[in-house]
C-alpha cells in the first residue's frame, strides 16, 4: 500500500505521522499504524477538546479527583457513593439504530460497573429529526427499542430522559446514554490503575470477533456520501452476557481479587491495555494469540482494534487468578491470561512468540497531538420579546402545539423502558425529575438537560440553561443538585464557528457548575456530527444528580387534589427588559426555593418549559385534576420564561406561604394563578376546554410514529 493511501486508511494526517515517527525514532511498523490510528483518534485522545475541558477541573469535598477513570464519583456521605457518566453513541445509532443504541447503553454501563459500582439507573438524551424525514421513523423506533431491549434485559431501570425533535437532526441523530451506579458501605472502588509488576493481565467476558474494527476512528469522521461503504463496523450487543459480566465483575472486585480493571470500549483491547499501562507507568506483555476469538481468521491488527462488546481487561496477583477464573466460570464466562505486567514501561505485543512491537505506552496515550484549533466565539443573543396575546391568539397558539413533535407525548417512548426493576424507583419518567430510594432512605434525584432550540439562538444562555434548568427542576422537588456529567455533541471542530460554540459552551457550563457548587465530574465529547457540511446545533447534554434529605413526600408534577392554590413564581434570570443574564442571582433564587420547600409542602411543582405557563399547566393536569385560572394576567401565558416555577399548595398553608414570599426574593414576582379543579381547564370565562379531551389529544399525539400503542 502506498504511503498516502495508508494515511487515509488509518485516518492520520502527515503531521500526525511525522509526530509519531519523531516520538518512536523511526518509521512505524505495520502493527503500530492501527495503534496510533486508534489511540490518536479524536474519540480516544480528545486531541481537540482537551485544552478546553480543563475548565471542568473544579471539585469540592464530595467529589474526589479521580480524573482519567471511567466515570466520576460523588460521595453522598452515610457510606453511599455514586458513580455516573453520560456518553454518546450517535454515529453507530444512525447507521444501525437498534444495535447502535443498545451497544451505547452497554458501553456506558461497563464504565460504571468497571469501577465496582452496581448500576442502579439509566437515563438518556435523544435528538431526532422531523418524524417525516428520510428513515426517521425507523431511526426513532429502532433507537427506542435498542435502549429498551438492552436496559430492560440487563436489569437496570431507565428512569428519565429527554427527547427532542428538530429538522437540524435529520441527518445526525443524537443518542446519549447516562448510567448511575452505587457503592455502599466499604465496597471497594475499582480503578484502572494500580497494578504491580508481575501481575497477570486477564481478559474476561465475550470472545473477540470482527465487530466494529476501526470503530473509534470512524466515530471521529463526518458522514458523507460514502457512509454506506462503512457498514461492516456494526457492533452487536448482548445484554444477557452483560448481565452475567456485571455480576461476575462486581463479585471479583468486592472480594478484592483485582488490582485494576477497565472495560474494552472504543478501540477495544488497544485502548484498555495502553491506557492501563500508561496510567500505572508500567509495561505489559500481551500475547494476542491468547485472546479468545470467535473467528479463526482474525489478524493481530483486528484483535487489537475489535470492538466486540461485553469484554473487560483486568490485572490481578497471580495467586488470585484461580479464584477469579472459578468465579467467572460460575457465571458461565471465561477468564484468560493474556500476559503480565512488567516494570519496564513498554507494551510488548506478541503473536505466537513473535514480538510484533515494543513501545512506550505514554507515546500513544500521553503524547497524542493536542490541537488548539482556531475559534470564533458566537455572539448571537436570544432576544426575548414580551408577548401580549388576547384570548383568541392564546387559543390558536395553544391548539397549534398539539401537532408539533416538540410537544408530543413522550410516554410511548419511556413506557417501553422497565422503570422499576431494582425496586428503587420512587418517581419515574412521568415526572420531570426521577427519584430513587437509597439504602440510607435518602432520595437520589436524576435529571437531564439541554434545550437545543435555545442554542440555536444563544449559545451562552443555552449553556447556562443546560445546567440551571435541571438544577431548578430538582430544587422545586426539594433536592439539591450535587454533580454533573456532560455529553458535548457538536459539529466539525475544524470550523472556527463550531469550535467557538464548543469553547463558549464548555466555559459557560463550567461557570454555571461552579456557581451551583455542582462539579462536572465526567463526560464525553462527540465532534463531527455533520453530514454534507451541515452540522447540528450545539447540543451539550447535561446529566445531573442530586440529593433529597427531607422526610416529606416528593411533590408530584401533576395536580393530585382539588382546591389547591396554584402559584407562579418568577425568577429574574434573563429579564425581558434588559435581556441581561445574572447567574449569581440565580443561585440565590435556587436556595430560596429550597428553603421555601422546606417550610411549605409543595403538593405539586413544575418548571415552566416549552409552550410557556399554559402548556405547563396542561402537563400538570394530566392526572385529571385541572385548574381554573383566576389571574387576569393572561397575555404572557404562552411565554417561555427564564424562569418561572409553578407550585400548588394546600389552602391551609396559603397565608404562611404568602408571608414567606413577601419577606423574600420573590416579594415582587409571585402571583396566584388559580385553583385546582377536577376535569377543568379554564383560562377565562370564554376560554376553556374539556380536560378529558385535551388529555386524550395529547396522549395520542405521537401516534404517527408509535401507532396506537399508548
Amino acid at each position: 500500500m502506498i504511503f498516502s493511501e495508508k494515511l487515509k486508511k488509518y485516518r492520520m494526517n502527515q503531521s500526525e505521522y511525522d509526530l509519531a515517527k519523531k516520538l518512536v525514532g523511526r518509521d512505524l511498523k505495520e502493527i503500530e499504524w492501527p495503534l496510533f490510528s486508534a489511540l490518536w483518534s479524536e474519540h480516544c485522545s480528545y486531541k481537540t477538546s482537551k485544552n478546553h475541558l480543563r475548565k471542568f477541573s473544579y471539585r469540592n469535598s464530595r467529589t474526589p479527583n479521580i480524573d482519567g477513570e471511567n466515570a466520576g464519583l460523588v460521595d453522598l456521605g452515610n457510606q453511599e457513593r455514586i458513580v455516573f457518566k453520560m456518553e454518546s453513541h450517535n454515529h453507530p445509532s444512525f447507521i444501525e439504530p437498534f444495535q447502535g443504541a443498545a451497544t451505547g447503553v452497554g458501553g456506558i454501563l461497563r464504565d460504571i460497573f468497571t469501577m465496582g459500582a452496581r448500576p442502579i439507573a439509566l437515563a438518556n438524551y435523544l435528538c431526532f429529526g422531523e418524524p417525516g424525514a428520510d428513515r426517521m421513523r425507523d431511526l426513532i423506533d429502532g433507537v427506542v427499542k435498542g435502549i429498551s431491549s438492552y436496559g430492560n434485559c440487563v436489569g437496570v431501570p431507565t428512569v428519565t430522559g429527554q427527547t427532542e425533535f428538530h429538522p437540524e437532526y435529520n441527518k445526525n441523530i443524537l443518542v446519549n446514554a447516562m448510567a448511575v451506579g452505587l457503592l455502599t458501605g466499604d465496597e471497594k472502588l475499582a480503578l484502572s490503575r494500580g497494578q504491580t509488576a508481575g501481575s497477570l493481565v486477564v481478559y474476561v467476558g465475550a470472545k473477540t470477533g470482527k465487530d466494529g474494527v476501526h470503530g473509534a476512528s470512524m466515530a471521529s469522521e463526518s458522514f458523507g456520501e460514502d457512509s454506506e461503504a462503512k457498514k461492516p463496523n456494526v457492533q452487536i450487543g448482548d445484554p444477557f452476557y452483560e448481565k452475567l459480566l456485571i455480576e461476575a465483575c462486581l463479585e471479583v472486585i468486592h472480594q478484592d481479587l483485582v488490582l485494576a480493571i477497565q472495560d474494552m470500549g472504543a478501540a477495544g483491547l488497544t485502548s484498555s491495555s495502553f491506557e492501563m499501562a500508561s496510567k500505572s507507568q508500567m509495561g505489559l506483555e500481551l500475547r494476542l494469540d491468547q485472546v479468545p476469538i470467535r473467528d479463526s481468521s482474525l489478524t493481530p491488527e483486528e484483535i487489537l482494534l475489535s470492538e466486540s462488546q461485553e469484554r473487560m481487561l483486568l490485572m490481578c496477583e497471580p495467586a488470585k487468578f484461580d479464584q477469579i477464573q472459578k468465579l467467572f466460570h460460575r457465571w458461565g464466562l471465561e477468564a484468560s491470561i493474556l500476559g503480565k505486567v512488567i516494570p519496564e514501561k513498554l507494551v510488548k505485543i506478541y503473536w505466537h512468540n513473535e514480538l510484533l512491537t515494543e513501545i512506550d505506552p505514554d507515546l500513544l496515550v500521553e503524547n497524542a497531538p493536542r490541537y488548539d484549533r482556531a475559534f470564533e466565539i458566537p455572539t448571537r443573543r436570544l432576544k426575548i420579546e414580551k408577548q401580549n396575546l388576547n384570548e383568541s391568539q392564546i387559543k390558536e397558539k395553544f391548539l397549534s402545539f398539539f401537532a408539533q413533535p416538540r410537544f408530543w407525548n413522550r410516554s410511548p417512548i419511556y413506557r417501553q423502558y422497565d422503570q422499576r426493576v431494582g425496586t428503587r424507583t420512587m418517581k419515574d419518567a412521568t415526572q420531570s425529575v426521577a427519584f430513587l430510594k437509597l439504602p440510607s432512605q435518602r432520595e437520589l434525584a436524576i435529571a437531564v438537560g439541554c434545550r437545543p432550540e435555545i442554542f440555536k439562538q444563544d449559545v451562552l444562555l443555552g449553556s447556562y440553561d443546560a445546567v440551571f434548568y435541571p438544577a431548578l427542576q430538582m430544587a422545586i422537588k426539594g433536592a439539591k443538585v450535587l454533580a454533573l456529567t456532560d455529553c458535548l455533541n457538536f459539529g466539525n471542530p475544524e470550523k472556527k464557528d463550531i469550535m467557538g460554540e464548543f469553547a463558549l459552551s464548555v466555559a459557560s457550563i463550567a461557570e454555571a457548575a461552579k456557581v451551583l457548587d455542582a462539579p462536572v465530574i465526567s463526560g464525553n465529547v462527540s465532534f463531527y456530527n455533520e453530514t454534507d457540511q451541515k452540522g447540528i446545533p450545539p447540543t451539550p447534554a447535561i446529566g445531573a444528580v442530586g440529593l433529597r434529605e427531607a422526610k416529606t413526600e416528593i411533590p408530584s408534577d401533576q395536580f393530585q387534589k382539588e382546591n389547591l392554590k396554584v402559584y407562579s413564581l418568577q425568577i429574574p434570570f434573563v429579564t425581558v427588559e434588559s435581556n441581561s443574564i445574572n447567574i449569581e442571582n440565580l443561585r440565590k433564587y435556587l436556595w430560596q426555593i429550597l428553603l421555601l420547600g422546606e417550610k411549605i409542602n409543595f403538593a405539586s411543582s413544575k418548571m415552566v418549559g416549552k409552550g410557556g405557563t399554559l402548556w405547563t399547566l396542561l402537563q400538570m393536569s394530566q392526572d385529571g385534576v385541572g385548574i381554573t385560572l383566576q389571574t387576569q394576567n393572561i397575555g404572557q401565558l404562552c411565554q417561555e420564561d427564564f424562569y418561572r416555577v409553578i407550585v400548588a399548595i394546600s389552602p391551609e398553608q396559603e397565608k404562611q406561604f404568602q408571608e414567606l414570599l413577601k419577606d423574600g426574593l420573590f416579594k415582587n414576582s409571585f402571583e396566584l394563578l388559580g385553583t385546582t379543579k377536577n376535569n377543568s381547564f379554564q383560562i377565562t370565562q370564554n376560554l376553556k376546554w374539556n380536560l378529558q379531551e385535551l388529555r386524550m389529544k395529547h396522549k395520542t399525539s405521537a401516534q404517527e410514529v408509535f401507532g396506537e400503542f399508548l
Partner: protein
Amino acid sequence: MSRKTQVGVIRFPGTNCDQDVFSWVQREGLNAKWIWHRDSFSDQEFDLVILPGGFSYGDYLRSGALAAQSKAVESLISHVKKGRHVLGICNGFQILCEAKLLPGALVTNQSLRFQDDWVDVRVENTGPVCAKVEKSQKYKLPIAHKMGRFFAPADDLKKIQDSDQVWLRYEKNPNGSLDNIAGIWNAEKTVCALMPHPERASLEWMGSQDGKAFL
C-alpha cells in the same frame, strides 16, 4: 410456635428481579434462601419456591425455554410432585409454562413492544399459595414485559376456565392476553404465576403496597 416459611428463590443466568424478590420475602418476615440454577434441591427443603422475573438466558429461543432445561427446574418438578408450593413472577411465569408446570404459553404483546405500566388485576380464584390475596378484590400492580400475552388453545383454555384455574384477570387488558388472563393456577392449585410484579408494589413509596398480599 410454627416454624417460619422456608422460601427458595431461583437465580438463572439473566434473572434480574432476584434481589428484589429476595428482599421482599425477607421484609415480609419469611426465611429466604437462594437456589442456583445449576444446583439440585431436595423436595423437603422449601415450603415455597419463587421464580423471579427477568430475562433468563436473555429470553433467547423463547422466553423461559432455556431456563426450563436447568437442573433447578428438574428439582422443582419433584418439589411440585410432593405438593409443595411454587410462585412464578413474569419471566418465572414463562419458565413454568415452558416446564409444563402450568398450562398455556406467553407470547409477544399485541403492541409488539415492551410495556411498562400499572395495571389493576381482579382475583378470580384463590388457593393455598399467596393465601392472603382475597377473592374478587382488585390489586394495583406494575407490569414490565414484552411477552406477557397469555395464550392457550381453545380446549386448554376451556379446561383452565372450567376448573377454576384462572387466578387473576386484568381489569383493562394491556397486552392482548386471552380472556384478560394475568395469572393462573395449575390444576392442583399448588403452582401459580402472574405477569405483574407484586415485589415492586410492596412499600409505601413504590406507588402501591398491594403486592404485600402476595406473600
